[in-house]
Structure formats: structure tokens, C-alpha cells
């Protein structure tokens, strides 16, 4: 996983709430067995509308998506995170996220940040007024900075540490292989097994 400390980029205003993972990437794009190349499925249905914001050349190269509440609800498909990442996004800012989507994003180094609605409104207005306006996401200080304003965001210390170090979860867990084996030895006989 790529390390994340501080990122400055431009933002795309997505003025929609309840952007479920079926909208982020429709199911027909989930048939692949690879882990990259999902950018063609990103918002595939909405991108057919020429007026959709991602089709606006003014936002080409943007790396920060700013959306309304309940972003990433629905299906657990990690493809939604891969599609955003493959398109070039490093950060998604929204007032609230679906839990599974958020967990997936933070495991893939796509930083999802919860900011209150007024802050999201300010960022929408900023990037709608000037599509090249820089927005800085500082994970070290847990701050979003833009147009002279600063908003703090919350992220637990452990997740922040993992993101900043780009650490692999499985490697971290296997440090505790002894504890896993000890737990397994204590499981009751009646616990289900398929073999």
C-alpha cells in the first residue's frame, strides 16, 4: 500500500447523497479477476450523461472527490475503492460513509475523510468557482486546508499510523500467530467445520 502523509490536489464536487457502491461501479464491471483497471467502470451509468461532473474537462486530473452524505453505502465490493483509485483519486471527503466502503478504502490507501456538511458545502462552492483551486489533505496533522480555511478531521491513531507507514494488515496480524494458535486450541468441539 502506498504511504499517505500529505496530499495537495484539486477537487471534484459531487453534489449527491446516498452514492451507493452500485453507482460507483455497476455489477457488470465486477466480473473481472484482476485488481486494477477498474477506472472504466467508475460511475459508468452517470458518465453517460455529458453534463456529469466527471465529464467536465475542467476537473481533469482532480484527485479529491467531495460528495454528499452516505457515500459508499450498499454492496461490500472493494471494486468501488479500486475504481476510484484507478481513476486517480487519493481522497474522498463526505459527511458520512458506508462502513464497509470506508473500511475497504482505508485498507487500500484511499483516504476517506468525514467533514461536516457546512465544510463540504464550502469545498463544493470552492471547486465549482475554481476547478483548479488546491485542496490540501494533511494526514499528519489530520487537517483539510483550502482557500485559507482549515478543518480538522478524526481518524483513529492506529489507522493513521498504518496509512502513513503503508503497512500490510496481514503481515501485522501474523506477528501474533502464537496468539491465534492458542485461541484455536481453546475452541469448543461443537464449533462448526465443513470437514
Amino acid at each position: 500500500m502506498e504511504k499517505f502523509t500529505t496530499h495537495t490536489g484539486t477537487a471534484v464536487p459531487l453534489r449527491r447523497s446516498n452514492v451507493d457502491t452500485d453507482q460507483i461501479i455497476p455489477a457488470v464491471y465486477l466480473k473481472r479477476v484482476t485488481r486494477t483497471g477498474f477506472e472504466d467502470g467508475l460511475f459508468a451509468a452517470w458518465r453517460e450523461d455529458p453534463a456529469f461532473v466527471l465529464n467536465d474537462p475542467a476537473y481533469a486530473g482532480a484527485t479529491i472527490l467531495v460528495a454528499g452524505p452516505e457515500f459508499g453505502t450498499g454492496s461490500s465490493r472493494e471494486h468501488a475503492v479500486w475504481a476510484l483509485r484507478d481513476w486517480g483519486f487519493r481522497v474522498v471527503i463526505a459527511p458520512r460513509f458506508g462502513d464497509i466502503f470506508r473500511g475497504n478504502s482505508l485498507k487500500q490507501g484511499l483516504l476517506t475523510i468525514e467533514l461536516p456538511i457546512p465544510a463540504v458545502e464550502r469545498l463544493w462552492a470552492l471547486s465549482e468557482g475554481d476547478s483548479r483551486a488546491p485542496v490540501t489533505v494533511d494526514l499528519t496533522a489530520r487537517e483539510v486546508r483550502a482557500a485559507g480555511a482549515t478543518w480538522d478531521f478524526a481518524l483513529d491513531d492506529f489507522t493513521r499510523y498504518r496509512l502513513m507507514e503503508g503497512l500490510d494488515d496481514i503481515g501485522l496480524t501474523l506477528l501474533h500467530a502464537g496468539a491465534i494458535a492458542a485461541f484455536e486450541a481453546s475452541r469448543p468441539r461443537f464449533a462448526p467445520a465443513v470437514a
Partner: protein
Amino acid sequence: MTESHTARATTLAEKVWDAHVVRSAAGEPDLLYIDLHLLHEVTSPQAFDGLRLAGRRVRRPDLTIATEDHNTPTDNLLTIADPVSRTQIETLRRNCAEFGVKLHPLGDPEQGVVHVMGPQQGLTQPGTTIVCGDSHTSTHGAFGALAFGIGTSEVEHVLATQTLPQAKPKQMAVNFAGELQPGVTAKDLILALIAQVGTGGGRGHVVEYRGPVVEALSMEGRMTISNMSIEWGAKAGLIAPDETTYAWLKGRRFAPQGDDWDAAVEYWRTLRTDEDAVFDSEVTVDVSTVTPFVTWGTNPGQGAPLSASVPDPESFVDEGERSAAQRALAYMGLTPGQRLRDVAVDVVFVGSCTNGRLEDLRAAAAVLKGRRVAPSVRMLVVPGSAAVRAAAEAEGLDQIFTGAGAEWRFAGCSMCLGMNPDTLKPGQRSASTSNRNFEGRQGKGGRTHLVSPPVAAATAVAGRLAAPADLD
């Protein structure tokens, strides 16, 4: 899963959680042991690839089981016409063979939707932790299991370690209070709850569904409710195990046998929220006012009683809800004030991990018996698993469906999501017993109304949204 003795009063979910903590350290998520890992073809290929790249094996193949469901056709058991779907299925078969994981492939008597397959074999047991790369894993909470959906990175993590690092969620109680009116199903209850609390109402919480109405539900009804926990944002949705649970489980293939059964039941009886346990939040739903429920919009929270009309977006105070309703009505092709009972549908789908079990098929068949599907409607009945299909045929339900003019299909996810040949065409409208009415969920441009099995069947007969009582 050893018995834990804590002084603190705890909820059912906390008891299951506490019994699975492998390691706990300040400032870090708990490391939870996973009792059962379910796999399907869509969210596993990249996880197996990760194992291969790192030279890792599946730690516990005996706690891992796979099936094919999302991509499979439901009109035959032999040919997967779409080459991309076929590749995904073949990849699962190769991965399961290489890593020693048991698989129920297309054509196998236990094949089916992953959340039907696990319970029917007795693998879903009270007090266990169950994960799957699928958000509807919450279904298994109906047995008092802590069950939740995970992403592909986590699938790889569980394959490699049989554990998951998890931050402890908050606890919520949902109290279904009051007496149920006749003709109201579990699906109506959960749709009414989601309309009440919204799609984000359960975010960050594990919930427990409680109350006499829940206790009176069958396991199938309980699974319908737990299944849709994710639709209002909850991580998991548990129901305390009781005699109904034990009776359902007893004798199933992987249920404990003999002395183990007695020991298991003794343990399961301890899995109840303590009287003085405190939930972080509570929601009460007055079920006495709930009537057959349908969705009118493009998220599961946009629902209303079938007897109501399409709402006017201007009636929403919140600006976000107002614009979401405007977008939804434009997509759905509905006008404010239109009576929901006047909405004509093209397709009726009975099936899915929400409502594809034997009891659901019986409920639909009871409405269809002696009636005909309207000529303007295509009705698909898709059993949740090959075993459900066989059981339904043993009692003649297939004859009722085909006699009424419905299609009797093979098991799979089918029209719940647009990943296999069963899809809506652009602009087509469905009444569907599935779980998501998102834009394009059942096929690009398709319009979905979520309903219960009896409402689905009545709608098929009437050609427009209807409850069984409307047919008399």
C-alpha cells in the same frame, strides 16, 4: 468461543465479540477469530491472487466454504454464456482446488446463494463469527451469530489468518413493539424500519432486533430482517437464539450431533443480552401501524405503505432528502401524488438472499394458487438454492408457479443484481423481493420496487403494485 465471565452486563453481540478476541491491545483494533468464512466468485479472485503472490496458504480450509451464485445462469445448469462470467467462475474453481477449499459449484445439490447455502447446511450457528465478501452476510445474524460483510482485502486477511482486526462497534437495540396486523411480513417490518431511520441510521452499530414480534417469527422471517441490516447501514443485525433457532438447526448436516448438540445448546442458551445491559442507542418501531410496504425511490429508505401515494419531494424538510427524492422520482418515472397501487410493473422477481427461501416461495405460491400472472407481466421465481428448489418441487410449488404462468428457475442471485443474464431492460419496472432498489441495480435503467413475497405475487396477478387482499 470459550465461555467468558465478565462482571459487566453485556449485550448478545458483545458476548459473541468477547468470546472471539484473540488479542486486544490499547489503541489498536481487537483481533477477532472467525469461525466461518463463506466465499463466492465475485469478491474472492483478487484475494486468492494476493495469497499466491505472498506465498501464503489458506490457514483453515475446514472453516471455509465456497459457492457459485452471482454470475450463474438460472435457466440452465450447464452453460455460462458470458465468457467474462465464465472466467470468474472457473477462477473460483481453480482457486478452491489449489487451496483445498470446499466448493458447491453450479449443478451441485447444495449450490445456491451463499447466505442460503450456509444456514441450510447447519453451518450458521449461534454465537459464531461469520464473514463473507458480501454485504448481506448480516443475514446469518438471525441465528445469534456475529456476521458481517467484508471487502476483498479482508477476505485475503481471513484466508491467511482466520482472523480480522476490528474496531469494536457501538451497540443498538431495535425494539419491534406492538401487535402485528394480519398480512404483514418480516419484509414489511424491515422496510418500515429503514424508512423510519434512513439508510445511514445504523452506521457504526451492531444492532439487535428484539421484541415479541421478532420472537414469533420463523427463522426465514428472521433472516429476512437480519439480511437487510446493511440497508440501513448497520454492521450486523443479531436476533437472540431460542427454541425456534434450535429446532431449525437440529439434524442439519453440520449441526452438532449427540453430546456435542447438548453442549452447544447449553452454551447457546447463555447468548442473551443481560437485563441490565446498556445499548448505545435504541430505536422503537410501532409494528401495529405497519401495513404492506413498498419502496418508491432509489434507496431502501425511500419507502411507503402500499396504500399511500408517491410523495411530493417538496414535502421533505431536509434539502438533501428533497433533492434525492427529486432525482429518484425522475429516475423511477413517477409523479408526486400518484397512488402506489396504480403503478404498473413489467417484471416480478421472487428470490434472493432476502426472500428466496422455502417459506418465501410458499407465501408467493399461496397467492398464485388458482390465479394467473397478468399477460403484461413476466414473473421469475428463483429459489435461493438448489436444495430450496428441490424442497419446493417436493411439495408441488413449482406446479403452482408454472401453472400460473410464472417462470420456475434454477438457484442463484439472479435478478437481485445485474451480473448474470437475468436483468431488467432500460425503463422496465419491477416488483422485487430483493434488497436494493438502487439505480441500475437490476440492470441498466431498470426501476425497482422492493416488496414482500405476497405483495410480489399479488402484483404479478394484478399487473400493478398490489397486496393479496386487493385480489379478492
